[in-house]
């Protein structure tokens, strides 16, 4: 049962082979049994889940079910869920019961999904290993002394360990694609503006985007149908119609032009990872795709640019956490300044404080032009790189990460080394482009992911290209031992 995809579970539910309550209980049991070692969940919402499951079964009995009715799902603890603790992986929000639902949560609820719980994540989505969480690191289900990736580590690990058939995540610099790669599952970051950011606790507003984890591109397509869409409460939400993302999955790939950025396949890339990707590329050639080399000349600058823009925006976004209206408040504040300083210093972890300070610095008087403005100019150059590339190719292919998962604790004292693990994923956030990571093999018994990027609002094509690979390979069907 745990190996079934969302599509398969949907059929089983329709054929009444299992009820939603049974299915939900099944996964809740698995979470109870396996998650204490994995640490992928912060909150398991058992009552909430069973109520939703009952409702789903009732709907089905009335003949009002749709494809996702009764499907259990886990949500990254960055999405506000009405009446359920929403911590963002931080002590700052350890006591925060969200008083409303994020729009994407509402969309998925309305589609009939059943929330199993809220998953662990890097604090305020800042991290690439899920080691900055107040609630402890998430273990990689394939090898427990390795990181699961971040910031959506819990969402990725829970799906990889078969504790949930699918989950939501967010991606600001790679926080869906990278953990999907390290955990051996499929993870999609849609186009910026495709899914609503309302109720998604903000990290870097011009980069954040909600997305999905599942075992297959088909599952992601099913869920994206429900999750995506215009939201009038989000000024950056785009009013584009939502197509049926499953409709184009089976288009054949003959003549598809795939571009390989030469800057990505250089000395920094682990040899074995490079080889695994090459093997995957050959599958695409067999499917009729045409491979060509392209150039994204400003690639190397995407990391420093990101590490100016994201901290700048986050330093401002996190100013609201001050112990006044919600969240952590220090004990016995002596005066107003003490309230602010201690609540924030005690409530935030090290990485968050680091980024807030970088952000504060780059926006401060005298430095704005040299840092923030400069970064935004280079951002345009990076965008232009993609515009030029997509004149020649339909899809860009690359490794998702330069290496497989690293050991827990290996990079925590070297922030820059940690930041560089996002080198392949960051540019897509800067350009707002949709990107997906799918499993394509193993190195040292750890999963390797391959990334596909396409043009704005090209999710259907992306899912099609990913799906076709999954029809001729079975990396996506593999699961870690012990679960």
């Amino acid at each position: 049962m745990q190996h079934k995809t969302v599509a398969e579970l949907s059929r089983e539910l329709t054929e009444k082979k299992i009820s939603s309550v049974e299915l939900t209980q099944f996964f809740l049991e698995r979470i109870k049994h396996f998650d204490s070692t994995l640490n992928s969940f912060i909150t398991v919402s058992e009552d909430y889940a069973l109520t939703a499951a009952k409702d789903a079964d009732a709907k089905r009995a009335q003949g009002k079910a749709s494809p996702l009715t009764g499907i259990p799902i886990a949500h990254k603890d960055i999405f506000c869920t009405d009446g359920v603790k929403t911590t963002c992986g931080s002590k700052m929000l350890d006591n925060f019961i969200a008083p409303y639902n994020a729009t994407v949560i509402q969309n998925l609820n309305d589609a009939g999904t059943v929330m199993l719980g809220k998953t662990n994540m890097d604090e305020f989505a800042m991290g690439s290993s899920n080691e900055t969480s107040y609630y402890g690191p998430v273990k990689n289900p394939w090898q427990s002394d390795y990181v699961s990736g971040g910031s959506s580590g819990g969402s990725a690990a829970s799906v990889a360990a078969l504790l949930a058939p699918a989950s939501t995540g967010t991606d600001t610099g790679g926080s869906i694609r990278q953990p999907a790669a390290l955990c051996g599952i499929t993870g999609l970051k849609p186009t910026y503006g495709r899914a609503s950011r309302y109720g998604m606790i903000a990290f870097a507003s011009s980069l954040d985007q909600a997305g999905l984890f599942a075992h297959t591109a088909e599952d992601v397509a099913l869920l994206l149908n429900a999750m995506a869409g215009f939201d009038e409460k989000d000024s950056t939400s785009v009013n584009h119609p939502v197509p049926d993302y499953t409709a184009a999955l089976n288009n054949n790939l003959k003549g598809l032009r795939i571009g390989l950025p030469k800057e990505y396949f250089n000395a920094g890339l682990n040899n074995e990872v490079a080889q695994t990707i090459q093997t995957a590329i050959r599958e695409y050639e067999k499917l009729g795709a045409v491979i060509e080399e392209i150039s994204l000349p400003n690639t190397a600058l995407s990391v420093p640019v990101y590490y100016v823009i994201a901290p700048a925006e986050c330093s401002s976004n996190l100013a609201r956490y001050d112990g006044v209206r919600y969240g952590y408040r220090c004990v016995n504040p002596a005066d107003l300044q003490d309230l602010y300083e201690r609540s924030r210093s005690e409530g935030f972890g090290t990485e968050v404080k680091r980024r807030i300070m970088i952000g504060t610095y780059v926006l401060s008087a005298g430095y704005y032009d040299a840092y923030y403005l400069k970064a935004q100019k280079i951002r345009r150059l990076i965008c232009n790189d993609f515009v030029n590339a997509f004149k020649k190719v339909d899809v860009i292919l690359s490794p998702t990460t330069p290496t497989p998962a690293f050991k827990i604790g290996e990079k925590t004292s070297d922030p820059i080394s940690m930041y560089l693990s996002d080198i392949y994923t960051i540019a897509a956030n800067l350009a707002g482009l949709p990107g997906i990571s799918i499993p394509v093999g193993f190195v040292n018994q750890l999963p390797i992911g391959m990334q596909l990027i396409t043009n704005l609002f090209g999710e259907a094509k992306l899912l099609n290209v990913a799906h076709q690979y999954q029809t001729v390979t079975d990396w996506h069907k593999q699961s870690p031992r012990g679960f």
Partner: protein
Amino acid sequence: MEWETVIGLEVHAQLATKTKIFSGASTQFGAEPNTQACAIDLGLPGVLPVLNKEVVEMAVKFGLGANAEIAPKSVFARKNYFYPDLPKGYQISQYELPIVGKGYLDVLLDNNETKRINITRAHLEEDAGKSLHEDFHGLSGIDLNRAGTPLLEIVSEPDMRSAKEAIAYLKTLHALVRYLEICDGNMQEGSFRCDANVSVRPKGSDKYGTRTELKNINSFRFIERAINYEVERQIQVLESGGSIKQETRLYDPDKNETRTMRSKEEANDYRYFPDPDLLPLIMDTNWIKQIKEKLPELPQQKRDRFISQYQLSAYDANILVSSKELAAYYENVVKASGEQAKLSANWVISELLGVLNKSNLDILESPITSQQLGKLISRIADDTISGKIAKTIFEALWNKEGEVDEIIEKRGLKQVSDTGAIEKMIDEIIAANPQQVADYRAGKEKLFGYFVGQAMKVSGGKLNPQQLNELLKKKLQG
């Protein structure tokens, strides 16, 4: 040493929309604390701003009324600082690209001259909440109802050279925003807040002196006093060899002095940057055109029209157009009076406004309607009553004793214009006062007033003055 005063003014006008600038919560004044602070106004995790169309329209109306450029593209920026009444830890404002650019207002000064005061810019921003300092066991209470209310910050060039000029500008601006119906201008409730930047410099110098900022003064009278005090203070400091510290000062109306606000620590670094949750505001020229077409007659236009149409002085016209309601009242009086424009102006300005001010009433609350006042004036014009008697009737109208003709009838106030009756009265007075008549005929011309007085006494003031004068003169001459 002759000193020149330099004043620049910043006005925060609360725009009279139903909802906040970035959320759909109500802006109604006087609600219970925090009952109009929605998730967005509270800055809850995950919330996002969406711009209110009416706010933009009102800003454009202002720009058009102030002869200003409307920016085709404007950008919202975050002004970052920490304060408990600022829920997000930043205020959404506009920095480098405001919605309204350079403009001007032509202000009528006391001496009937017009001075052009230039406006640097006007931008949109959200208001903060309020802190209540009444003790809650040593704590302050924060009410965020006001957080998110739309403000238009209107910045003038430092073009004013006296407190009087500053007040004239503020009154002109006040009238404009009320005419445009974008702001109710209620200074007590905080919907029209004025900050004055004041400095002095030696006359003839073209360099600006160090300025101080006067904040939180909520009446024109106090602003004038505060500016005057501050100018004197600065001159004294400079003349005794000191220097002006750039700071914010509060005005104490009881002591009539300005004081340093408790000095803050180092000046805030607001780290302005474009708000990534909002996109650039692009103004469609067609929309601006539509807004322009819907603009009401503005104070300046109305003032010019009153001068030419009603032959009024600039001074009188200026008073009458100071509010749309007053101007409308006046025009109704003119109509009801049978086009007695000058007389109507006198009565509205000298008589009505005086009593209204004394009783603290607004023109809309006037117990005397424009119809009634107009009627009264028409009765003066058609010689039914004298101007003096009219004042009595005015009082009666104020006390709601009835309509004009009713009162005239009931109290028998019709003035006597019958030549025969008047002549008879004069004859009686002449007969009764032989000595005065002789003295008058001998040359004491001043005694004319005595006879007029006698006639008025005898008649109960009801004689048509012109006729009385004519006939009296004739008869006295013998």
